């Protein structure tokens, strides 16, 4: 069957499933809307959390990045999984015990301050909105590529679908839909990987194939890869460090604590019945994430090797441009792959030498999508990858939109501005807030700001430097008071923002960067994307210093801290 028809069928079936689930699991109360009624089984919740967490970036971009960064790409692998260890041990069980709907609500109560709650809401909205923009863009790109419609049409279709199941179903609909989405995205990721591993090494398990010898020879795949890339002047695959060891350390730490502080991930742990379920739920989430994250480096290495082998089948004998395969032509059409015959010999030279390199553009984001085509897999696998990419983008967008709408309707409206509204009105408000958030994210998706790439760093930096330290100190210290927490959050965010802005421009406007984006100006050689770790340290230090020099928190707050440390007597998460 035609690839196009097949893609329509596969994507159509998956969407019918999502919408069917949304209708079946409509939310009737605020509790069902915000936290799915608090009755989700830990394994199911783990699966939903995994789909929520793994975005278009994980599914489409990550392996491509690693393919070109080699060992340096490990920061994403360790950073985006290691955060769940911290989440499981330091935050999830205690926040579940506390039993409220949102993250700002906990911060506001623990630090007995409306100001703290508002500061937390602001941080939450900024990091979630910046994240949603990226997802919306991913949805637009994926739809337009696979359904062969314009980017704008693709985005519009995607927005309607998110609107339908997120607004109707709330957390309950989202959770069940995400379980279906996880199944589709993980199949779409692993099936091509298995095929490719099998054809390269004869071992069907990519994690093992990556460490095996190539079929029909006794050379290890990784040794061959190192040899091929170094011969062409690229950095050795298995040892190429990203900038410096200090930078890799800070980057990994920043991603880990940013993960643990991202509100749309944290609220997932409010949906399980008990404290012990919150612990095991984090473990299950990590299992489901690890399946993709241990496959990704194998996909990355194998894709890089396949690409190199296609262009230069044997050393010194390059592919003639006229003989290029079909996938090469397809991606040339998108402009994401570009060839320029600099020496006019009709052959493709791909080297690290900028003067001689003729592959003038190889966009990293195409690697995962092009991979099945490069490996000449059947069309139904390629159609499945399209559905998987869409599932990843849609599930994350829905989770983020829920976090934004609950912050607005529950924390700002009900908590601060209009405490007297009824549950029905609040539910209505949160649906309107969510529709508004979708419209805003869609608008930003139609007019993508230039800073889209830079804001991802900001989202993690903000979560790492503001929300995570405040939550952790709130649980593990009864001495941190409201003055300390507020000063810490503000100091952490400010330092991180200033550092990002001074190197990337104020609000990412080019020309306003007052120190220039030059590695020589970086603090200990730490790139702006990795600075959340330093911001977090500043947050902790300021909070401790200020708390020590001001009055201890009142007695009932100290009792509250004692109370959340005891796992029993969990009430169902509730309002007040």
């Amino acid at each position, binding site marked *: 069957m035609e690839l196009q028809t097949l893609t329509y069928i596969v994507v159509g079936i998956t969407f019918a499933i999502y919408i069917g689930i949304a209708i079946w699991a409509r939310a009737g109360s605020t509790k069902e809307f915000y936290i799915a009624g608090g009755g989700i089984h830990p394994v199911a919740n783990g699966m939903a959390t995994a789909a929520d967490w793994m975005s278009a970036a994980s599914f489409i971009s990550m392996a491509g990045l690693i393919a070109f960064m080699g060992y340096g790409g490990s920061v994403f692998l360790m950073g985006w999984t290691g955060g769940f*260890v*911290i989440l499981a*041990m330091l935050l999830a069980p205690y926040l579940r015990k506390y039993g409220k709907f949102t993250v700002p609500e906990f911060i506001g109560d623990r630090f007995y301050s409306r100001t703290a709650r508002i500061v937390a809401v602001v941080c939450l909205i900024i990091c979630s909105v910046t994240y949603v923009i990226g997802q919306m863009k991913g949805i637009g790109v994926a739809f337009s590529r696979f359904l062969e419609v314009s980017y704008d049409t693709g985005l519009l279709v995607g927005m309607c679908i998110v609107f339908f199941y997120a607004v109707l179903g709330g957390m309950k609909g989202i959770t069940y839909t995400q379980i279906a989405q996880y199944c589709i995205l993980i199949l779409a990721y692993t099936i091509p990987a298995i095929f490719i591993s099998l054809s390269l090494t004869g071992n069907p398990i990519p994690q093992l194939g990556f460490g095996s010898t190539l079929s029909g020879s006794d050379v290890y795949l990784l040794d061959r890869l190192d040899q091929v890339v170094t011969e062409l002047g690229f950095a050795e695959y298995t040892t190429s460090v990203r900038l410096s*060891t200090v930078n890799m*350390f800070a980057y990994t730490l920043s991603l880990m604590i940013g993960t643990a502080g991202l509100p749309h991930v944290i609220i997932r742990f409010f949906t399980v019945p008990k404290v*012990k379920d919150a612990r095991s739920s984090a473990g299950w989430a990590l299992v489901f994430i*690890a399946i993709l994250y241990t496959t990704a480096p194998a996909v990355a290495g194998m894709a890089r090797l396949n690409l190199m082998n296609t262009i230069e089948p044997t050393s010194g004998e390059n592919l003639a441009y006229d003989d290029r395969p079909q996938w090469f032509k397809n991606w040339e059409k998108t402009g994401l792959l570009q060839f320029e015959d600099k020496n006019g010999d009709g052959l493709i030279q791909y080297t690290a030498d900028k003067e001689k390199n003729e592959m003038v553009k190889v966009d990293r984001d195409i690697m995962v999508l092009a991979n099945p085509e490069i490996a000449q897999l059947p069309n139904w696998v390629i159609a499945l990858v399209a559905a998987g990419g869409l599932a990843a983008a849609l599930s994350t967008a829905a989770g983020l939109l829920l976090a934004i709408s609950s912050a607005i309707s529950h924390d700002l409206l009900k908590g601060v501005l209009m405490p007297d509204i009824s549950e029905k009105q609040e539910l209505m408000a949160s649906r309107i807030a969510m529709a508004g958030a979708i419209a805003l994210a869609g608008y930003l998706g139609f007019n993508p700001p230039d800073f889209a790439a830079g804001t991802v760093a900001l989202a993690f930096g903000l979560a790492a430097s503001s929300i995570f330290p405040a939550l952790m100190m709130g649980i593990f210290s009864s001495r941190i008071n409201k003055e300390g927490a507020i000063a810490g959050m503000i100091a952490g965010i400010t330092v991180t923002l200033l550092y990002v802005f001074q190197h990337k421009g104020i609000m990412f406007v080019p020309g306003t960067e007052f120190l220039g984006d030059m590695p020589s100006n970086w603090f200990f050689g730490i790139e702006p994307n990795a600075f959340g770790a330093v911001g977090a340290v500043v947050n902790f230090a300021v909070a401790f210093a200020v708390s020590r020099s001001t009055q201890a928190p009142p007695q009932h707050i100290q009792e509250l801290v004692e109370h959340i440390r*005891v796992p*029993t007597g*969990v009430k169902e998460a509730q309002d007040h």
Partner: protein
Amino acid sequence: MSFKSESDAKAYWKENLALMVKLLVIWFVVSFGCGILLVDVLNQIQIGGYKLGFWFAQQGSIYTFVILVFYYTKKMGQLDRKYGVDDE
């Protein structure tokens, strides 16, 4: 249901922290230690096609994280029962 005495509550929390610190040390060693700081030293050792440091950074640390969280869940379950604060 809650703790029988104040000292029980203290002991429970102390054991919880000890377990946590122990597991976080392992978390740090496999990722930041083996995967980043000691990667060059470990890369001298080869297991199959993998250099050991590279393996920790792209595979081993992730497997260890999964084991850590399940071990924590199991141990905390035992601790809850020991102090009679499990929610059954």
